[in-house]
């Protein structure tokens, strides 16, 4: 069949066009994109700062190495490894514990996060990107005098807890395997039959943990999306 014969009657074409337009209007730009664009517009008159998400992917090897080296230094200097300081293992225990309150609601101002926050860091709404992963609960704890908030998610790989500990970063346990993904240095370890991924964000330790089979890949996706 030639292209000429593929050309429909005008009324048929119009009907298809109307349906396409109707469906397309359902799509809205993500809130995160709007925020990044707003930042770009605000900065248009000044020297442009690197775009947030692209900058992660575009970080050169030198930059990544420098960040990693700095992280190592910080671990020794300010890592919570002193007496009485909480440990990553403490955070893992919270991440694997049952929630004590109902799931926090999605933030209507930014549907990519839920209404739970530690030190200015919002917990992600993974359901936004992975519809099968639902937020199932939250718990608030104090570990060695520090606030720790845990949001629990449930999805195809079972339950996954995400704990953020307020205050200076915690020391990464020896023997952790380091993975670089999404511009982050992720430490992967096993604890009590669970898979744990921990990293630092804005100077705080974040811990994701789950017991499901093959959950590591999902934890890495979660960590780099957060």
């Amino acid at each position: 069949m030639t292209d000429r014969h593929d050309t429909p009657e005008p009324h048929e074409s119009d009907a298809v066009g109307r349906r396409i337009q109707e469906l397309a209007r359902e799509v809205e730009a993500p809130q995160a994109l709007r925020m990044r664009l707003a930042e770009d517009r605000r900065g248009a008159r000044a020297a442009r700062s690197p775009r947030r998400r692209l900058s992660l992917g575009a970080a050169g090897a030198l930059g990544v190495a420098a960040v990693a080296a700095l992280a190592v230094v910080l671990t020794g200097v300010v890592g919570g490894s002193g007496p009485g300081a909480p440990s990553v293992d403490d955070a893992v225990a919270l991440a694997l514990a049952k929630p004590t309150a109902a799931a926090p609601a999605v933030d209507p101002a930014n549907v990519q996060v839920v209404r739970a926050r530690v030190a200015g860091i919002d917990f992600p709404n993974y359901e936004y990107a992975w519809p099968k992963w639902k937020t199932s609960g939250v718990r608030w704890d104090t570990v060695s005098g520090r606030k720790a908030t845990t949001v629990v998610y449930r999805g195809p790989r079972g339950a996954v807890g995400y704990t953020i500990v307020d205050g200076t970063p915690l020391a990464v346990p020896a023997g952790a395997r380091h993975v670089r993904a999404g511009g982050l240095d992720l430490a992967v370890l096993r604890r009590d039959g669970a898979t744990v991924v921990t990293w630092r964000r804005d100077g705080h330790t974040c811990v994701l943990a789950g017991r499901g089979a093959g959950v590591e890949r999902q934890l890495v996706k979660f960590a780099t999306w957060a």
Partner: protein
Amino acid sequence: MAATVLGMPDEGQRPLDPQRLGDHVDRLYRAALALCGDRHDAEDLVQETYARVLARPRFLRHDDDLGYLLRVLRNIFLNRLRTQSRKPAPLALDDERDGLARPGDPRHPEAALEVSELLGAIAGLPDDQRDAVVAIDIVGLSYREAARALRTKEATITTRLHRGRARLAKTLSATLAEPDRDAAPHR
């Protein structure tokens, strides 16, 4: 032609107002999705489009900001394709990330799937047909604006659009069948 030049405007030209660019985010995002078929790539594409437009003053001859933005977006997309030497990827990022459904989304999951299928199908159209469908049905340009944005004739746009729609109708016969209710109004 919506000539865009750097430096000082010529007679009949006006500067593009950066503060109004936000009005077009949804349409450009739809266009980006339909071009590259990938959510993350679409976001990057829109952001790079805005970054490029905002990098220096722009002057347009006609009131077709959206058409101009679409042309920039399409050029960046094509440059990326040439650089990466690959065709558009399928819409789904991974096996657990499907559709466009998300909390707060008023649509049914079925509708999200339909949109996802539609955008994926548009991304798979021959380039000229895809561009016409994106410009007119996804972005909402008039035939004249689309012809200007794509730098071709209106008649050519019309032909490409109809062929693109016909191909989509064959591919997505169930999705593109009009709902059993009064026809949706024209834009």
